[in-house]
């Protein structure tokens, strides 16, 4: 049987991937360049028995998806730069209270209102550090329309598995670009649902210190009456300022993600086997980097691509290993240098790191990356 193909934008593909993953609640607020995601959900969710709500603001949207997730429904919101800033406080709430949910940020130029309809990759650090306090972060970044759809299923799976919000970073190019894609059949892909408690309600500890650092999650209304708070809490979920308990729980939260980094981190390596030059690029920039690499290889430069699909947790060991192989690492990104600091940190001086940065609101042209590669030669 020939699989049906659809010509969709990255924004539409995100919505389709989320529905395939089982998302049945979307709350959002219109903002360019993410608005088509909300529009798609408003059309599609009622068809599958789900609910779309256009909220009064970005803050309410984030709050509502956390509420819906607490009540047991996979939930998602979508926004862009300014809205991503507004959502940060409640993203932190979801981190501390360990509520699964997915937040799409279609990156546009900034700061402030910036360049509403033009691409950027300048929110990659905000995705990690946008909300206050130490907190675990998972952030994924697709580089095609098909990947926007497929990776969205993975975003929900990681979110449900690790009880953590997942940041899904598109840029305006992927968001608005149309490509033919196949929408996966939910029965043919792995779908992970949160683990629910099996103990008696009296014995349920939502925030226990366990061997895995994780705990099953009881949905509201299903017989486990417990307390969820944004205050630091003890194993029962009730507020505490006991220094030992607070420290232990903060460490557990970070360890919950860091110890599972091999499961969470994904990346693409291309033409790296014989490479002595590597280009580190993600999202749209990885696409232009591929063009540059193909050109450079024509003139005999042994150059390859490292494309992180998981930006956070950062693929530190993989980058360090690559640093041991190549003479120079070129970091190309649509900002004035953000992930380059992580790359430099992980390279530990084992290779030269060179940046190709651009914050003009235009995608980086292959030529610019090619020039950086050829400079090596």
């Amino acid at each position: 049987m020939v699989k049906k193909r659809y010509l969709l934008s990255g924004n539409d593909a995100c919505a389709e991937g989320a529905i395939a993953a089982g998302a049945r609640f979307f709350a959002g607020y219109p903002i360019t360049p993410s608005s088509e995601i909300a529009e798609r959900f408003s059309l599609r969710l009622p068809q599958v028995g789900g609910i779309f709500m256009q909220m009064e603001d970005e803050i309410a949207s984030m709050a509502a998806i956390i509420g819906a997730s607490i009540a047991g429904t996979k939930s998602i919101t979508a926004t862009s730069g300014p809205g991503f800033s507004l959502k940060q406080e409640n993203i932190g709430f979801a981190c501390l209270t360990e509520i699964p949910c997915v937040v799409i940020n279609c990156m546009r130029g900034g700061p402030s209102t910036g360049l509403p309809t033009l691409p950027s990759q300048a929110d990659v650090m905000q995705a990690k550090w946008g909300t206050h306090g130490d907190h675990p972060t998972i952030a994924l970044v697709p580089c095609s329309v098909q990947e926007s759809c497929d990776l969205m299923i993975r975003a929900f799976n990681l979110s449900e598995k690790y009880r953590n919000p997942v940041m899904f970073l598109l840029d305006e190019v992927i968001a608005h670009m149309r490509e033919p894609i196949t929408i996966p059949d939910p029965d043919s892909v792995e779908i992970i649902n949160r683990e629910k408690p099996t103990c008696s309600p009296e014995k349920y500890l939502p925030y226990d210190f366990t061997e895995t650092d994780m705990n099953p999650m009881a949905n509201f209304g299903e017989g486990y009456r417990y307390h969820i708070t944004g205050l630091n809490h003890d194993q029962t979920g009730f507020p505490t300022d006991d220094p030992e308990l607070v420290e232990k729980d903060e460490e557990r939260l970070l360890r919950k993600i860091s110890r599972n980094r091999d499961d969470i981190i994904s990346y693409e390596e291309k033409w790296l086997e014989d490479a002595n030059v590597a280009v580190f690029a993600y999202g749209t920039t990885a696409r232009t980097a591929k063009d540059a690499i193909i050109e450079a290889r024509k003139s005999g430069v042994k150059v390859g691509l490292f494309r992180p699909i998981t930006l956070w947790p950062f693929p530190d060991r993989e980058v360090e290993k690559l640093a041991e192989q190549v003479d120079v690492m070129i970091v190309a990104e649509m900002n004035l240098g953000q992930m380059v600091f992580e790359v430099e940190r992980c390279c530990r001086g084992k290779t030269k790191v060179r940046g190709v940065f651009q914050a003009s609101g235009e995608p980086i042209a292959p030529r610019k990356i090619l020039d950086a590669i050829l400079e090596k030669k």
Partner: protein
Amino acid sequence: MFDYKKYLRTEKLPHIWCPGCGDGIIMKAMIRAIDKLGLKKDKIAMVSGIGCSSRTPGYIDVNTLHTTHGRPIPFAVGIKAVKPEMNVIVVTGDGDGVAIGGNHFIHTARRNIDITVLLYNNWTYGMTGGQASPTMHIGDFATTTPYGSIDQPFDICRLAEASGASFVARCTTFHAVLLTNLIEKALRKKGFSLVEIYTQCPTYYRGAGKRVSAVEMLQGFKESSVMVDAAKKMSPEELKDKTIIGVLVDRDLPEYLDEYKKLIERVRKK
């Protein structure tokens, strides 16, 4: 004697409230209303924001959610949207509910989403040390109005009514029996239901520039309150400085999630 223990997480007591605070009176009234209606504890979600009143859910043995400042209403909306069979109660204060959370308050009332909001109004920010609130009266003193307030106060009940709520009532902590009755009515009513409750903060409230004891404040609530039916027979002059208590609005309006359910049925029939 009513057994409150059935609804309390007694192991989490004592509570954090100051001696003389009105929050305990409201908590007990709410418990009596829940008991009167025979609501199942498993099917109640109690959601709060930040502030003294917002600590209430922690002590009550239902599904409880203590959220961020000003945001309990949209969290509650998310719960109600996907589990409409639950009774969703929001406990909030004047700062949480109509200052930082004002936008959520008016829009959720506008959509007339079936949740019950208990808004504790003590004209001050108790938890942060007695700063000015959007309900305090002109000339009132607070730690951030050392020269007296020049702000026009919100009338929360009129705000809810104008926004489109199905049910609006006002009460005070002096009128504990009436309060139980009003919370019961609010819980029963389909749509957005608000009960605004005047409550005393003997620790920080300094309206006229000096501390007022809890007893004096309760006495004040008693003397200044007029039942809504009696108020109808009074002139505007007679009602000056009076607080009208009772059911102010009770009307049947379409409820958002009911309408959404119909929308889903309509879409899926095609």
